């Protein structure tokens, strides 16, 4: 199999399989979660907290100032790599073309050198989070194989994309194939690791926001 075959496979059957497993897994996970149900709260709620669950989905992205000061590394690198990852994902023209071809939606791209710089910043932030995860006692205790796997499959697409653009290590065709394959790996692993948080955090924040609002601590 040559690089072009690999590229064609990754753009064709590979992508179908990866998206299939991703969607299968995520739908399954949602059923797993919601099938457990929850009891209706019989305690009368305080008034004034309507919509707090929905608001918490967004407000929880902003940390309390004092808490920010207590975990600056996690907050800062977390912000940088999340925002960086999504800028690279959503504002590099080839990615927009992919989204457009699947969904019909499109928007203006950022200049490639800008995306390139953001990719580098994202990679650095991801490396810092990994080092911090290994060095910091709390994060080391909490970390499982799944956490390192999730890190790896997040890191690889950014790295291979960067390498492909800069013609590092391999020829562009092979590197592009590896880049797409790394994204497919991310999609396949996604529903079965903590990466599910991208979807379920909105559920969690909603439950959390609703719970607090019923008690009169609405966000």
């Amino acid at each position, binding site marked *: 199999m040559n690089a072009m075959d690999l590229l064609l496979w990754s753009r064709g059957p590979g992508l179908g399989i990866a998206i299939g497993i991703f969607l299968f897994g995520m739908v399954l996970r949602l059923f797993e979660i919601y099938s*457990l149900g929850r009891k209706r709260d019989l305690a009368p709620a305080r008034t004034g907290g309507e919509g707090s669950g929905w608001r918490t989905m967004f407000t929880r992205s902003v940390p309390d100032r004092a*808490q920010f000061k207590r975990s600056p590394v996690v907050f800062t690198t977390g912000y940088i790599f999340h925002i960086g990852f999504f800028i690279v994902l959503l504002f590099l023209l080839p990615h927009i073309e992919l989204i457009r071809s699947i969904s019909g939606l499109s928007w203006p791209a950022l200049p490639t050198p800008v995306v390139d710089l953001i990719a580098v910043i994202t990679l650095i932030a991801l490396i810092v989070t990994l080092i911090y995860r290994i060095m910091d006692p709390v994060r080391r205790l909490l970390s499982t194989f799944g956490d390192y796997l999730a890190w790896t499959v997040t890191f690889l697409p950014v790295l291979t994309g960067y390498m492909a653009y800069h013609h590092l290590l391999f020829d562009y065709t092979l590197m592009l194939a590896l880049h797409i394959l790394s994204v497919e790996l991310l999609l396949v692993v996604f529903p079965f690791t903590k990466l599910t948080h991208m979807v379920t955090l909105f559920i969690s924040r909603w439950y959390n926001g609703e719970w607090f609002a019923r008690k009169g601590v609405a966000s």
Partner: protein
Amino acid sequence: MTASLQKGINALREVLDAPIASYFSSCVRCGMCAEACLFYTETKDPKYTPIHKVEPLRRLWEQEYTLTGRVKKMFGLSKPVTDEELEEWSPLVYDSCSQCGRCSMVCPVGNDITYMIRKMREGMAISGHAPEGVIGATKRTIELGSPMGIKLPALQTQISKQEAETGLTIPIDVQGADYMALLSSMEIINFPEYLGALAKIFHNAGVSWTLSSEAFEATNSGIQIGVADLARDIVMRIVTAAEKLKVKSVISPECGHAFTALRWEGPNLIGRPYGFKVVHILELLDELRSAGKLKTTGKESEALTYHDPCQIARRGGVVEQPRRLLGDVAADFREMSDPGVWNWCCGGGGGVSANDRAEHLRLTAFKRKKAQLDALGVETMVTACANCRIVLEEGLEHYNMNVKVVGLTELVAEHLVEQEAGK
């Protein structure tokens, strides 16, 4: 598997619900909850990271309620939850968690870790892994009526004393009163002035109220230890008494988790809404104040601060009321750092104060409150939870700090404008 472990795991299977499944699915193990927990910040021991405290629950959820977990279990690839593990986790679930709920406010993905700890205790207690101190308190509540073993005669003694002191009658078992007041054992034994304060305030405001000889104890050890069946029996005593007396409202006393037990958990424990309202004494005082029925005179001149009891503020939504009341009676009120819903726990909530095993850890965790007080430099701290009050006093004594702790209701009562008799 022992029968007790079987029961414990069965209980955990029962309590695992959609929110918990979502929380575990969302956790990215960022560890930010550690920095929200005073048991971690004051010890720097990573095992006190809140989310780590529910690790056995997470594994059980994965093994029982997810496809991948079931497959892993089928092939013997997952580590089962054992008695040894639960025993190891007992200090994490009971000693180092006051259910203060701070981690639930901090978690970036929105996990309510406190909720999970509460649920996990259901499995821990029933499988015999609750600490002795908390078991004892629960036993006394069930068998004698109160965690400190206080019975009606003791209350009657305190009633007579307070009646003598205030010159007012303290009503008991009055049918059709508007309010039925509850007390915590600690108030009966350590702070009976609270009862006198209530009598004065209600008399002045013209509130019709009563105590019940059948249910005067508000605290609920069943909640703290985490046995819903027992908590239900305990809360049912109050419900039965209140409904028998046909009161319109029940007043939760200055006690944090008693409020949680009665206001938020109670209806869910008994499986139906109450036939009466539940108010916290601070809410009621604030209502009377707004209605102009609570007039005060004079203000405390020395600087004072307010310690928000977790269950009343962060987990109960009573934040502004104590500040309005304090504004009337204190000339120099100063906020601590991280006030209101961001407060730091005294370290003794959620059954920790009843847990002898946790004493050293609790005093270590008190360093957080000490640091807050040191930074503020006040000599009076007002609060609205008898449990906080005792824990704070113990902590202050341990660290030789010269700070006085005062109950807010008593403070308000001291500044009451007494109405002329006969009115």
